[in-house]
């Protein structure tokens, strides 16, 4: 008894070729757009030399964290350490990738979350997709990205965007659904349009929850950007990968430490700008 071989791989392949032939131009546009975002962020971040950058970022952190001195000093020391390990450019590249992917994920994810909260039909479509995405290991996201965009920063970012978007959608949806009925009634009773209700009542009230989504989105972006090194994304992740392949403990450890520093700073920063109850 022989189970016949089903040519799943071949079928998918020809499907992908078909998509590439017919919609390739769309993917090119998307690709260019992503490239533009990444280099844009990189240019901005690279504009200042490390010392000046550390100075400026510390002041910025001090202001947005509402005078959190511990966080400010920690940030300065962390970035100084990165520079002293000679990982500056790679770190900036990683941060640029994180910012670019988180930006796209949020710009798409938050409005989607709002619509899912407002419209049961959209919610019933979005929810199973999110549930399905949650069951998949992060690794799996790399495959379709490679299929459509080849190797490099762009597929890495595409995989990252898709991977990091669910918490933004989920928590925005949750935050808006959790707005107390009476506050909605207040909005209605005072004659708001639905746009006014959203902007003046629902979003501000849901903001702490939405910001938790933003935080998760950024943190997932970072973790995925590192993994995406496997399909050619640059930055610290690539350095870790090389360290592993060559069993170069020193290089691997330093790059890993750089990632941890960036992770802590990004996490604390997004948490500290979340409004407290």
């Amino acid at each position, binding site marked *: 008894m022989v189970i016949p071989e089903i040519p799943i791989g071949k079928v998918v392949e020809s499907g992908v070729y078909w998509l590439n032939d017919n919609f390739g131009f769309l993917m090119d546009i998307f690709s260019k757009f992503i490239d533009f975002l990444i280099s844009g962020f990189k240019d901005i971040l690279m504009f200042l030399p490390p010392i000046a950058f550390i100075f400026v970022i510390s002041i910025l952190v001090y202001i947005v964290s509402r005078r959190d001195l511990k966080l400010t000093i920690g940030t300065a020391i962390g970035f100084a350490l990165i520079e002293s390990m000679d990982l500056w450019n790679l770190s900036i590249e990683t941060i640029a990738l994180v910012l670019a992917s988180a930006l796209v994920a949020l710009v798409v994810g938050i409005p989607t979350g709002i619509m899912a909260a407002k419209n049961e039909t959209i919610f019933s479509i979005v929810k199973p997709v999110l549930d399905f995405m949650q069951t998949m290991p992060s690794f799996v996201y790399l495959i379709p990205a490679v299929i459509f965009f080849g190797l490099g920063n762009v597929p890495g970012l595409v995989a990252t965007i898709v991977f990091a978007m669910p918490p933004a959608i989920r928590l925005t949806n949750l935050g808006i659904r959790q707005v107390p009925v009476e506050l909605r009634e*207040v909005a209605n*009773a005072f004659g708001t349009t639905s746009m006014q209700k959203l902007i003046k009542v629902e979003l501000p*009230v849901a903001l702490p929850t939405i910001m938790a989504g933003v935080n998760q989105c950024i943190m997932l972006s970072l973790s995925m950007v590192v993994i995406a090194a496997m399909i050619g994304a640059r930055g610290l992740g690539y350095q870790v990968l090389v360290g592993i392949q060559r069993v170069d403990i020193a290089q691997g450890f330093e790059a890993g430490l750089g990632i941890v520093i960036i992770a802590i700073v990004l996490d604390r920063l997004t948490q500290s700008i979340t409004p407290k109850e």
Partner: protein
Amino acid sequence: MNFDVYEGETFVLMGLSGSGKSTLLRCLNRLIDPSDGHILIDGDDIATMNDKELREARRKKMSMVFQSFALLPHKTVIDNVAFGLEVQGIPKEERYTKAEEAIVKVGLKGHEASKTSQLSGGMQQRVGLARALATDPDILLMDEAFSALDPLIRSEMQDELIALQDKLKKTIVFVSHDLDEALKIGDRIAIMKDGVIAQIGTAEEILTNPADDYVSEFVAGVDRTKILTAENVMKRPEPVVSINSGLTVAMQLMKKHGISSIFVVDPEKTIKGILLIDDAVKAVKEKRTLHDVLITDVPTVAPDEPVKDIIPMVAESQFPLAVVNERNKLLGVIVRGSILGALTIKEED
């Protein structure tokens, strides 16, 4: 059901939990869409308005005060108060001026920049009230506005609402499940049961003449002495004796009615005093006149005096109380028995 709320009155919707008070109130500004029927405000039917007209009515005509205050947590006191104006697109300066007026009205001056979460419950509801007043609507809808407050603050807020209403003369529809509150602040009260109105009337009408068993049971627990007035418990001033008649006439009248004292009035029914039977007997023996033994220092009360305040007077005085109008015309008589009678609910009818 069908009912009118008059301009400038405080109309209380009253009933047990689940009787449909909030639902009815929310139909008035269509937070809940009525399935049928009409809601007329100045002749415009709220129930059939399109979205735009409805928004306009909600912005200008009526506003709402909520049981759980429902303040916007991200806004300061003054921004909460100015919310209705902000929604109308009024520029910041003007809306702060108006919001400030409302804040002063509810006695929150000095707290404009506070976070609402820092305020006590009573103060939070003042913000809620100020927010409703800031748009200067004709109609205030208040859903158990004071129920979340502890009793002392609550009673204080009720007094302030009454005082404010005296000045502002808004049309208030107030939902309450507390009968004492309803009786205190309501000009008229509607008692609801299972989504329909069982009776509408003034406090007195409902207490003295409940429409059905449900209403009379509902009002059974009320402290009637606060609601009923001298007018409700007095008896007809009969018999009285004219100041111009003699002692013998007075004595005959007392004997005939089995009473030990009698009020003496002039032809205009103005009260002149009271005559006791013992004095009358003595005076006849001593050949003195009515004028000589007439007790002119009689206790009197106004017809709108609450029974609560009358009870101690009745207890102290050895004579019946005379109920008189401002020109001292005798309107009625109160004896101990008449108060007791009025306070016990009639089981029949």
